[in-house]
């Protein structure tokens, strides 16, 4: 029964996009495709089967959740060593941020909470966006799957959201040319649209998904969203075995809350992805459950699906640890430690679906530590070590 719940995450997902770019010569990269960034990947920090991973706890409930992940990993015997990197939210300088990015480049993989950017000055970048852009993590994947037995608006949802993660409305190009008139630019490029579309179709193919729906607003933004839509239609022709259709974002949101079962894989630009992700999380039980994965050609970052800091509940021992734990499980799948990932998944599903130990956000009264304790207890029942 539990096996149905196990995430259908493929192993080594990040590696699969090494195509195209690497068959080009350095000359071609420089002169024929000026938008392609040339990156010499640094080998990952894996020694003797143990992998070093950057851990960015971020603000709010991040540090608590990370300590739970550490505990569970320790008891499950996952061969992962964490390198914790803290970013000071009050600092105006980007030194900590640069160090965090360097650390992810060295390790190749990171698990991350939501990082606060307190500064309101236009020069200080939003750190979350800066990390994604600097590492070129152009796709965000969210697997939205219902947990049986959990209070939720909709039952039996199983859909994937694939979101362009680096451009669109998040290009951070805003200006005031004339007093009182502010322009914000939304940038859509053919190359990034193609990468993300190709990722979506490859992903659907590998995971046995049947249908991809491109979400857009090309009736209004005929050029920018039009380009995104055209690109995905073009790529769809290369994958005749996967059904492809399109839907306008406003209609999509309505359909999601009324009949979400019609969707399989959804492909969309940055801002729509942010909205749809949050809608889906709301449908199956809130911000505390799901995890999101960010992939680039060389790096991968795992984080909770809804990028909230949860400052109001920080330090109260009531935050739902499941989302961050799911991010950890995604990471183990990515690193190829399927056994450990399955063990933690089983323990987690048993805790929330069978034992019904729920934090307040799911309508329960349990503390965060109760949930984690139950998960660890389950892991220990199948272990013989004296902890």
């Amino acid at each position: 029964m539990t096996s149905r719940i196990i995430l259908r995450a493929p192993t080594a997902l990040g590696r699969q996009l090494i195509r195209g770019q690497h068959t080009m010569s350095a000359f071609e990269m420089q002169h024929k495709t000026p938008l392609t960034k040339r990156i010499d990947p640094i080998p990952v920090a894996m020694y003797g089967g143990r992998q070093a991973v950057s851990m960015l706890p971020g603000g709010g409930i991040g540090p608590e959740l990370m300590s739970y992940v550490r505990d569970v990993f320790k008891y499950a015997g996952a061969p992962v060593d964490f390198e914790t990197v803290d970013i000071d939210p009050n600092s105006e300088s980007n030194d900590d941020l640069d160090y965090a990015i360097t650390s992810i480049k060295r390790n190749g993989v990171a698990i991350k909470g939501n990082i606060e950017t307190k500064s309101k000055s236009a020069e200080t970048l939003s750190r979350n966006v800066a990390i994604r852009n600097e590492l070129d993590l152009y796709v965000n994947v969210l697997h939205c799957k219902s947990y049986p037995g959990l209070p939720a608006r909709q039952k039996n949802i199983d859909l994937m959201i694939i979101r362009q993660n680096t451009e669109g409305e998040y290009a951070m190009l805003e200006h005031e040319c004339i007093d009182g008139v502010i322009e914000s630019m939304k940038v859509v490029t053919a190359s990034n649209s193609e990468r993300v579309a190709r990722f979506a179709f490859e992903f659907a193919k590998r995971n046995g998904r049947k249908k991809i729906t491109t979400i857009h607003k090309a009736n209004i933004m005929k050029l920018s969203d039009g380009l995104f839509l055209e690109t995905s239609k073009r790529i769809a022709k290369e994958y005749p075995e996967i059904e492809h259709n399109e839907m306008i974002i406003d209609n999509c949101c309505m359909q999601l809350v009324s009949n979400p079962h019609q969707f399989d894989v959804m492909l969309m630009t940055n801002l729509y992805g942010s909205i749809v992700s949050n809608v889906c999380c709301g449908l199956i039980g809130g911000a505390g459950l799901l995890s999101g994965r960010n992939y680039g050609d060389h790096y991968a970052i795992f984080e909770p699906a809804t990028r909230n800091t949860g400052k109001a509940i920080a330090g109260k021992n009531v935050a739902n640890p499941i989302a961050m734990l799911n991010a950890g499980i995604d990471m183990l799948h990515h690193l190829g430690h399927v056994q450990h990932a399955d063990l933690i998944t089983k323990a987690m599903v048993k805790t929330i679906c069978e034992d019904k130990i729920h934090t307040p956000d799911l309508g329960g009264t349990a503390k965060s530590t109760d949930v984690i304790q139950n998960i660890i207890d389950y892991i220990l029942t199948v272990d013989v070590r004296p902890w």
Partner: protein
Amino acid sequence: MSVIARNVNRLALQVISSSVRSIHCTAANATAGIEERPDARTSCTLIPGDGVGPELMHSVQEVFKASGIPVDFEAYFFSEVNPTLSAPLDVVANSIQKNRVCLKGILASPDYSNTGELQTLNMKLRNALDLYANVVHVKSLSGIKSRHENIDCVIIREQTEGEYSALEHEGVKGVVECLKIVTAKKSLRIAKFAFDYATKNQRRKVTAVHKANIMKLGDGLFLKSCEDMAKLYPKIEFEKMIVDNCTMQMVSKPQQFDVMVTPNLYGNIVDNLACGLVGGAGVVAGASYSANAVVFEPGARHTYSEAVGKNIANPTAMLLAASKMLRHINLPVYGDMIRNAVEKVIRDGKVRTKDIGGQSSTQEFTYAVIANLEIPKAAKAAAV
């Protein structure tokens, strides 16, 4: 930590009956629909090696048996000096590849070659598994008299290229050329290993040992690779030192060193020098890493063949290597248990082997370690 504190009863139970529990819990769980986790017992390749290796391994196995450690050994006799009895290289390599951990004694390498083959078996094994990084943690043990105190340094050595490339030829009669190969890829790889090791173990400084003033291209490349990699680790201090100066500093003021990264031959020399500072080949453990596998072995490579069968060799190095192995495979409590017992026996000073100034036999030392095995304080505090 509340998570552990809540677990008191379970912990107490597990600590007391860890070896028995595995049997009972399988049966109980079978009815509850919970399967035993597949990696509850770990298998580990065991290569006793030449010289006193088999005696030392016996000692390790005694200790493992006495503490009920869930590790199964897959033993292979592997030797260059005894080729008829030796298991084939690919069999041993496959076993290590599969188990990902190996505990290995020292293989004797003769200083002649009957067949014209230049690579030693040790080198073949390293190349087959790509065990590129050798780590020797040299730490003073209290209770052993030595010239220096409080030494705590880690020597990281590239061990798949450099002088050990086994490329030697006599182009003109009487003139032998030996090639030392240095590649950017492998230099960067070992430099990154050293910095990652320093990051993981909260070390502050990495020293690159080289001879780039003479070998400007070869060692120069190694040094440049280390410098390049150092830029990615702004929080770790980086310094470079010429190998001859390094050996002098090592014997006069070894406390200044933290993590050292070296090419192949220099590493070999510095390893042995440093081991000598803290009590000799019998007391320092080392490990060789590839991306996927680790081979744990004594830090200084001596077979001590003159002591074979005399029951006088010091099993400390092998026991400490085993303790490191247990930490690596996520059994840190057992690892600490063995390490603490060994340290206690040496500190007490009643049972000492000949090399550290005593009269006891290998067996007596082993039994003394077994008598001192106890659950470390941290785990005990949680259980009480």
